[in-house]
């Protein structure tokens, strides 16, 4: 399995007047168990010290390192090179603001989405922290956690047909958040409140059901089900 890998990597630093967008080629000897995290660091260490990319946890949980890997949005840290052909093309996620090379500002996008959808438990009561907590059904807690597992990596937004056309579309990530809070009895918002933030074409009604989102979600969230569910609820709420 001693392969030579040929990388084609997008290079462009908008802050650097001398830089222009182009693809650059690098070659690397593959090693056993090599991930794109390892490969990109080797390229940076030995060939391209200024190459920008984002890794944080490097364990598939923080959502920093999504990029287009041979055309498909994926988490680079947990992509083994052995799962790829020997020519590997890496591009930054489109849809998000480019910082440089493979680094994009998905954090800014996600924060705006959170502000718009108010992705937090809305509750007016102050909790008495000395008292036993309110009970919650164990199955419900597990269900909420299931929806809470989104890592805001942006893959679903990149794979979304609507997001390509509508700049303000909230994407599957946003709709799933609404499903998460709607399932949570601690959030005292009602369907009308949710309708106010997702009941339009930039919200759940913009989805064209192409379901690229579900195909690429690294956490395998049931995005299709959640979108259908929220659409149904919002259709009623809008009547």
């Amino acid at each position: 399995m001693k392969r030579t890998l040929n990388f084609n990597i997008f290079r462009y630093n908008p802050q650097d007047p001398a830089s222009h967008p182009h693809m650059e080629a690098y070659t690397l000897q593959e090693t056993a168990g090599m991930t794109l995290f390892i490969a990109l660091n080797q390229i940076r260490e030995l060939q391209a010290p200024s190459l920008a990319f984002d890794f944080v946890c490097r364990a598939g949980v923080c959502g920093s390192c999504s990029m287009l890997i041979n055309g498909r949005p994926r988490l680079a840290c947990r992509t083994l090179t052995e799962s790829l052909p020997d020519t590997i093309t890496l591009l930054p996620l489109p849809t998000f603001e480019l910082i440089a090379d493979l680094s994009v500002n998905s954090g800014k996008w996600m924060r705006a989405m959170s502000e718009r959808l108010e992705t937090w438990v809305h509750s007016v009561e102050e909790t008495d922290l000395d008292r036993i907590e309110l009970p919650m059904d164990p199955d419900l807690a597990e269900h909420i956690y299931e929806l809470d597992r989104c890592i805001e990596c942006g893959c679903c937004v990149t794979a979304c047909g609507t997001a390509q056309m509508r700049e303000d579309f909230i994407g599957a990530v946003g709709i799933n958040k609404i499903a998460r809070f709607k399932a949570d009895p601690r959030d005292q918002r009602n369907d009308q409140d949710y309708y106010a933030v997702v009941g339009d074409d930039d919200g759940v009604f913009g989805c064209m059901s192409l379901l690229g989102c579900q195909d690429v979600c690294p956490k395998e969230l049931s995005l299709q089900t959640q979108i259908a569910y929220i659409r149904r609820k919002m259709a009623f709420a809008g009547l």
Partner: protein
Amino acid sequence: MKLIYTDVLVIGGGLAGMRTAIGVKRRGLDTLVLSLVPAKRSHSVAAQGGMQASLANCVKAAGDNEDIHFQDTVRGSDWGCDQQVARMFTHMAPKAVRELAAWGVPWNRVRKGEHEVVINGQRVTLTAPAKAHGLITARDFGGTKKWRTCYTSDGTGHAMLYTLGDQAVAASIPVEERKEAMALIHDQGRCYGAVVRDLISGELSAYLAKATVMATGGYGRIYGVSTNAIINEGIGQALALETGVARLANMEAVQFHPTAIVPAGILVTEGCRGDGGLLRDKDGHRFMPDYEPDKKELASRDVVSRRMAEHMRKGKGVASPYGDHLWLDITVLGEAHINKNLREVKDICQYFLGIDPSKEWIPVRPTQHYSMGGIRTDYRGESPWLSGLFACGEVACWDMHGFNRLGGNSVAETVVSGMLVSEYIADFCQKPENDLTVSTHLAAEFLQRETDKLKRLFTSSGDENAVAIRKRMEQILMEKVGLFRNGEHLREAVEELQQLLIRSRQISVASQAQGANPELVLAYRLPRMLKIAIGIALGALQRTESRGAHYREDHPERNDRDWLNRTLCHWNSEDDTLPVLDYEPLDVNTMELPPGFRGYGTKNIIEHPATEARQTQVDRITEAAPSDLNEQLMPFRHLLPEKYRGDNERLEDSNP
């Protein structure tokens, strides 16, 4: 010159920073948070197994309370911790879990009736009473007498950080992402904020604040293999050190976690063993009971890690191209349990090892994991030497962990200390004498200094390569300042790390990009990492005893007589290559739990002369069982903000 003013500048957007920002905002102060990365991508998000709090809701937690949590924590610390702080912490932990529950964390809950669990390799049926149904449940973790670790599957850090991140958005707290603190602005023993670099544009600005909070996390990544996120490089500790005034403490106290996968070094949670997983050697033999008949796989991390290394030294490791390892066997837990409660572990095994952990054993070995040491603070989270500088979370040595932290106590610390420190900060800011009176000259001076440093890197003709120096630093720490230490290796480490620091002053940067520029970032961070590395190695060299995670083969005994103290570390001048160490004694006469045997690990203690008398005194007071026992043994409640002094209710109180 760009100046930004706020009341409280929070540097770090992990659990500690977020909870602090929310706390000061609730007290009516203006605040903003800086983070190297989007806040929700901070290292905290990767915490897996859970958060300790003595709620006592599940069957195996019956009878748990703050006292037992306190004792476990002190034993875990190998008597290195500040017992008053540990008391404050264990009192607050249930409140913190309950607050997070109210804010949205979907904690796993108790289910009434019978359920099967695995204990000591055996399937056991437990029956949960109906009255506990729906309350927050807990799992077993190392070094604890009760099942006390609250969790959401094995994505606890994720659920907690997303909840706090969202609450910060709800509170309209600005979080400035991709901003790096480069220096603390200070004068005459008072901190006034920080010089900050925008990692996208490269611009430097001065942020001025009444209070500055370091919440920048640990320093694991200066080791070659670590479970930490790659941004945990100890920069926060280094910035405090570079003031020359603030002090770090116990930098040599570095934790190695027993179970990181080989070779990637990615953690699989202690929850694996807590839920019943076993450690096996090359013969498939479960070896931990041979060494630790009582706690077995669930002794504290320092002990389990050392036992594993000891066993591998006996030739019982599994040989691999990446060195020896052992096996973690969670097949005994069954697929259903893994799919529900250990799903990140399952993903990690699938993606990084190509195995199914419900069918195959996981290759693991002890790996750098946690920094007990950090910026020394008082119980209020403030530096005793640099007023206005606060620190909390992993970056701090608040000192509830001493020389070894228990699993589940760290995310608990981040939130508890955020709750407390934000109150003390608010009190500090409300005092007129702490108003911000800094001159813009001072800000300009610090800004200029950082500007010049960066300019020097761009124009330097030095011929040193940052990547090579970094690799060597990582290697030295791994080989000479690891799990087993000795004087000879530590001396070599201190010597060579100093050489590296000198060489690092000759690094030059080829790429001239002002904004995103990873080459530049490494160049200015590396000398800071080296200072931390030297602090660790020197602390370890001078501490001629073994305590918690700090183990000296040439001094295997815990020496309370000479070393019941905290190492303090400060850096006098920029040109120095060594910090200055001095020591802060721990007072046996005020301890609620005087030094003793931990109940696991090897018993090898040189006693402190005052221990026996104090123990007698403690026993006498305890036997008399006064209603204000805590007050008589070691008062701590008066240190807490008033609103947090109340007792924690438990099921046994509500249903007598």
